């Protein structure tokens, strides 16, 4: 019953928070409207998102987000250096395939987003059976090392976060 009324508690909390941030004030009518939206939208969209993602450890998720933010900062300096100082003929772009073994589509989406935001890599597509990601590297002298790096640094952590 409760699972039907609140299909995604995380999404509900996120919607309430977003609405309060949007109105930029915490008053009774803001909260009532926020709760209303937070309850209605997940129910109305439940058929598009049937399974609830199972988080195994939220603490690890926070650590993961911290790691990604740090990597994004480092990534930007690397990409800036490539754009500014590397001549065209030295930039070696490459397509690579990364085989993926993740339990849920949510984890896969998170990995794809992480890859796009971090050093010189960009997720371009996923195989139709969701077992491999197509990634474009801006400058990868050693594509195999990039692939192993993605698998060890991000995928292994996500496997531990999502059950």
């Amino acid at each position, binding site marked *: 019953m409760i699972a039907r009324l609140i299909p995604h508690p995380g999404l509900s909390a996120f919607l309430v928070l977003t609405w309060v941030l949007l109105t930029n004030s915490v008053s009774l009518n803001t909260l009532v409207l926020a709760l209303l939206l937070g309850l209605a939208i997940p129910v109305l969209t439940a058929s598009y998102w049937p399974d609830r993602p199972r988080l195994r450890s939220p603490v690890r998720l926070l650590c993961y987000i911290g790691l990604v933010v740090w990597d994004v900062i480092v990534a*930007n300096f690397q990409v*800036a250096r490539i*754009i500014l100082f590397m001549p065209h003929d030295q930039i070696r772009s490459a397509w690579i*395939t990364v*085989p993926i073994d993740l339990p849920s589509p949510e984890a896969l989406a998170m990995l794809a*987003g992480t890859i796009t935001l971090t050093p010189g890599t960009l*997720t371009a597509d996923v*195989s139709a059976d969701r077992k491999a990601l197509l990634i474009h590297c801006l400058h990868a002298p050693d594509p195999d090392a990039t692939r192993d790096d993605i698998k060890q640094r991000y995928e292994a952590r996500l496997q531990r976060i999502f059950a």
Partner: protein
Amino acid sequence: MSLALEILVSAALVVGGIFGLIGSFGLLKLRGAMQRLHAPTKATTVGVGCTLIASALTGLAATQAASWHEVLVTAFLFLTAPLTALYLAKTHMLTTPPGELPPTGTPRDWSNRDAPG
């Protein structure tokens, strides 16, 4: 506004401006459609992120109350940048010759060219 805060805000503004400029410059300089996709998705997003940090700090100093709109804009930009890049990459793949892409290593093809069903 205290001196330390002013230095922090100025640094955020300068770094943000430089990264924003680099992102737009990369769009002009890099060759090849996929290479060009890398520049704006990273540099520009962080450039705007730095600008928003500066805006949040000045707002905090001026009114003594936190404005949360900056947090929303930043979160929104960082959530949507990968999606925009993914869709643009998919659009580029339409014109990429099939032999250029590596094999998936699985029975099915890349979802962009895999026949439905």
